[in-house]
């Protein structure tokens, strides 16, 4: 071969080829393993786990879809109050979440935390805790604790909001310009004044934007709170489903859609006004 005649040492060339071959084999093994895993997942969850007997052919599926599409408009007037309740749940939940976020963000921002060894890890842990538990789980916990109604929903939404709001706030605090803070310390300002005059004006736009975004998300969250008995549109959804009134179910879904669209519009303009 002409390549062996090239001024590349034979040893270097062979080693390179061997290395390349090994890498190619490794890549193929990886692909083969992935495909096998995918096949196993498909087999186990869809082929094996599905109740094929009950599916009842194309006609059955079409019939169910048709039942959902015949919207039960008579339910419309009864949706107004639950829709408002959902909106209020989202709003109160967001406000309460902001209140809870204040200490968490303070603890969890490395540059202002009262103690690096106790409060900082605590703040970070609370942030993770809030986000790693789903809002439905929070709602179930609070339904158990304070009973049915909107209150457990508000508390669940608040707890779920803390993680996001406090994390973004803590990061904003960590990224501030330290120079104004130094100036407030130099005039003899205390801890509160340093925060209020040196830090808050710098992070305010970020925080307000985050709160509006969180409120927007919380409308979605509140809409499903009723599934576990925490009021709002979700509760109507649950009842319609229990009565097999599929037309009503569709109407509730549409109502949720409209509510979320309204929230989207409001938050769009609110964000524009603030930033």
């Amino acid at each position, binding site marked *: 071969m002409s390549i062996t005649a090239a001024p590349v040492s034979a040893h270097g060339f062979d080693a390179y080829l061997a290395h390349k071959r090994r890498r190619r084999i490794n890549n193929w093994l990886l692909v083969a393993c992935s495909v096998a895993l995918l096949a196993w997942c498909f087999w186990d969850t869809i082929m094996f786990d599905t109740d094929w007997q009950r599916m009842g052919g194309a006609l059955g599926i079409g019939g169910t879809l048709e039942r959902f599409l015949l919207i039960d408009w008579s339910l419309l007037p009864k949706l107004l109050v639950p829709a408002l309740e959902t909106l209020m749940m989202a709003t109160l939940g967001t406000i309460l979440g902001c209140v809870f976020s204040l200490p968490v963000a303070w603890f969890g921002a490395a540059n202002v935390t009262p103690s690096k060894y106790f409060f900082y890890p605590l703040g970070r842990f609370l942030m993770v805790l809030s986000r790693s538990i789903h809002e439905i789980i929070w709602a179930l916990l609070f339904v158990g604790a304070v009973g049915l109604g909107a209150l457990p929903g508000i508390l669940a939404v608040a707890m779920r909001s803390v993680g996001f709001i406090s994390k973004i706030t803590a990061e904003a605090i960590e990224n501030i310009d330290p120079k104004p803070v130094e100036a407030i310390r*130099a005039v003899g300002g205390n801890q509160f004044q340093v925060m209020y005059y040196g830090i808050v004006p710098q992070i305010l736009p970020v925080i307000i934007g985050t709160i509006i975004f969180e409120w927007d998300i919380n409308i979605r969250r509140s809409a499903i709170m009723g599934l576990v008995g925490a009021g709002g549109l979700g509760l109507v959804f649950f009842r319609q489903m229990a009565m097999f009134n599929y037309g009503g179910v569709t109407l509730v879904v549409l109502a949720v859609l409209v509510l979320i669209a309204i929230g989207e519009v409001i938050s769009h303009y609110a964000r524009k006004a603030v930033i």
Partner: protein
Amino acid sequence: MRHEKIIVEGRAQRGLPAKVADAMSILEVRNLKVSYSTGGPQILKGIDFEVGGDDFCAVIGPSGAGKSTLIRCINRLVEPTEGDIILFGQSVCPLNSGDLRRLRRRIGMIFQEFNLVNRMSVMDNVLSGRLGYTGAFRSFFKAFPKEDIDRALNLLERVGLQDHVDKRADALSGGQRQRVGIARALMQRPEILLLDEPTSALDPKISRDVMGLIRELAAEFKIPVLCNIHDVQLALETCNRIIGMQDGYKKFDGPAKGMRKQDLDEIYAMEVL
């Protein structure tokens, strides 16, 4: 004049005579040593000097000589490692956080990059100079007493910003922002002014204007000044005393008028080499 009234009232309020005797030394630095980490390189290697009376004292020297560290030690924005700083007759180093805050109220500081709160108005920035004297409730609502507001308006007029009172600090030019910084420092009715490179973010002409303004106000309010500055020409023009630093040591200390070219050459020897 109104401003003189302010000074006299300010001094009376602090229980001081209307005029401070020139000979009184307000600041004493003794064998000051600083290193930022234990066992790390020493930035200041034993500095001694006194400031008092009508001193307008410039600290000059090449970059890295420790000028900024020296200025920041005096109000303990940087913690001294060894030695002592005696300000207004009390040692600064052993103060607890509350006493340190009370001491800092009496020290005006002007910064290289102005250190204003950009999203706050010019007026609020100036008023923030009074925070050390303002309770939590008043500071929460930014409700400063009438006399503070009057004084802030006076000072803003003095520094030529009477038309910018309600503007946001970041809407001003560099020279104007430094004037806000000056007004904020004077709001404290300081008994000493620390200037950390007050002109190095400004162009030469504005630098001269700003230094001139500071000299004028310091003379009028009888405040001694310790000013860290790298523009030697400007230092010689503005200040009446020069402290020359090199590599953490004091190399020169004397009146600006008596400074010879060879003194400067010695201070800046590092740069020549």
